């Protein structure tokens, strides 16, 4: 539907003649993409190479003053692999990623299915509300959730304290959510899922609207329930969408930074994930260790690269780069 270039491109006779085509200089398209290439090369590719180079170097205060970097071989990697903090950060990254992605996808799909079942006006009303969650800037979202889960005047503790003790236990009024990693990550997960499920919901809704109604009609006549209809019709048809959404969610959630930076901060090393660990090594102390930071960033990037490769393969196979 968006690839509107293809109909005119495949129109018969277009390729051989056509006045506009012949008039265009061959250099044209290259000149048009040149500025973009320069920007991307300087701001994305070159820094990526630098990360690779610096992870084998010592880059600290002296280098910031202009001295050349010192090659240290694989020392940075040996240091981080020996550091329990690295393994803990990796564990946090993976666990948080898996939980947040799963919850986001399940919740987003359910809301997408719900939006599809609602009447038109109700559907756009609910979708509008869901958008508000998506639109909130990450830094404000983190601060709002910190406030909601705070222990002086926080709405969540007040609410949990109100519920019967048999259900949720007691002592919620003064509970500090940000004292240890597990509760901190619980709040972080809720915050991130709240911000990311709308995208899934809206995409699933867009996909559902493209499924011909006759299929569901037929399923109903055959007496299929909601569960079977989803797995036999909806899921197979929307498989490509789910693939893309899963990959995008993984990439977004694995590198979460701003929200955790607000909720845990650089002082709370127990709660680090890989992004925060890399940042803290590079900029956290009075002795910046940019080489170490690069080594950690490289590990994170390689993790995401595997997922990115999957994403690009899906997009190419679906003809998006035609």
């Amino acid at each position, binding site marked *: 539907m968006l*690839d509107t270039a293809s109909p005119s491109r495949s129109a018969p006779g277009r390729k051989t003649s056509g006045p506009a085509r012949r008039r265009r200089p061959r250099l044209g398209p290259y000149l048009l993409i040149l500025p973009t290439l320069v920007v*991307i090369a300087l701001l994305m590719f070159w820094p990526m190479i630098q990360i690779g180079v610096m992870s084998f170097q010592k880059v600290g205060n002296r280098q910031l003053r202009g001295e050349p970097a010192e090659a240290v071989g694989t020392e940075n990697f040996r240091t981080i692999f020996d550091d329990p903090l690295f393994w803990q950060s990796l564990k946090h990254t993976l666990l948080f990623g898996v939980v947040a992605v799963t919850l986001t996808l399940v919740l987003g799909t359910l809301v997408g299915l719900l939006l599809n079942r*609602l009447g038109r006006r*109700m559907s756009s009303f609910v979708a509008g509300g869901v958008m508000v969650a998506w639109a909130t800037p990450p830094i404000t979202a983190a*601060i*709002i959730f910190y406030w909601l889960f705070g222990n002086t005047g926080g709405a969540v503790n007040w609410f949990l304290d109100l519920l019967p003790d048999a259900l949720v236990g007691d002592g919620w009024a003064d509970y500090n959510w940000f004292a240890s990693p597990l509760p901190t990550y619980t709040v972080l997960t809720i915050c991130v899922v709240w911000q990311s499920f709308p995208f899934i919901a809206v995409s699933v809704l867009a996909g559902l609207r493209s499924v011909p109604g006759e299929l569901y009609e037929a399923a109903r006549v055959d007496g299929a329930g909601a569960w079977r209809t989803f797995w036999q019709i909806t899921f197979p048809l929307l498989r490509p969408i789910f693939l893309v*959404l899963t990959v995008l969610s993984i990439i977004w959630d694995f590198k979460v930074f701003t929200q955790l930076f607000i909720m845990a901060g650089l002082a709370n090393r127990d709660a680090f994930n890989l992004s925060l660990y890399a940042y803290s090594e*590079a900029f956290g102390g009075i002795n910046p260790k940019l080489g170490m930071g690069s080594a950690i*960033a490289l590990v994170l990037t390689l993790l995401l690269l595997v997922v990115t490769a999957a994403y690009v393969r899906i997009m190419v196979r679906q003809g998006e780069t035609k």
Partner: protein
Amino acid sequence: MRTRAMFNALGVLVFVLAVFPVFWMVSTAFKPNDEIFSSTPKPLPADPTVRHFDFVLNGRIAETSFWSYFGNSLLLALGTVVVSGLLAVLAATAVARFRFTFRTTFLVMLLVVQMVPLEALVIPLFLDLKRLTLLDSLVGLSIVYIGFALPFSIWMLRGFVAAVPRELEEAAAIDGAGPVRTFFTVLLPLVAPGLVATSIFSFITAWNEFIFAFTFLDDQSKYTLPIMMQYFFGRGGNEWGPIMAASTLLSLPVIVFFLLVQRRMVSGLTSGAIKG
């Protein structure tokens, strides 16, 4: 009929849960302090006040006025919008209108760079900008933001360019207009709505960005709104009234803009998948 009522009730529940945090932010911003710290919080302020907004807008935050942070954020966002919009139009035209060697490579590259973890790039870009003495500078920061906004802007715009019927350009060419003139008089006006959508996207990218601004900027007079938020919050985190008032001021433009372009953003991100 019963199931319909049930779905509607579920819809209302989803709406309430989705909007609640933002509602709570705005409501807190209008509450006097004793209501904010009350042990029995109420959804709406009993005695609404604009004191916190007054404090944020007219007071001094870290010896700087709100309007300085606001001005810097606005300047950065507008700079990013103008430059990335211009570059995106050029590249999108190339991709949507020409077949050329490396076209597919270019498109794949656009996909790949959108996946690069920007958080990882803080370290090398910090050193690069330091070398260029662009570290503590809004110009340096906006160059970085242009790089972040550009790939997605091109991806989104190429659909708009491709949607313009080629015949219109051919007609202009027959009338004797050169490629440059055709571009400005035919293509650009027709792509304008798409350009608005991508501009809003770039605006939000720059307006919301936190880590790079936080790491690169040193001089308080150059701080942006997200840094102001962090500063406020980091000071012991007890001034919830002003913090929520400032959050409201930071978020509202983004939320409004976002609601305007969300349809386009979704199709830009998952386009291929929806073709069915």
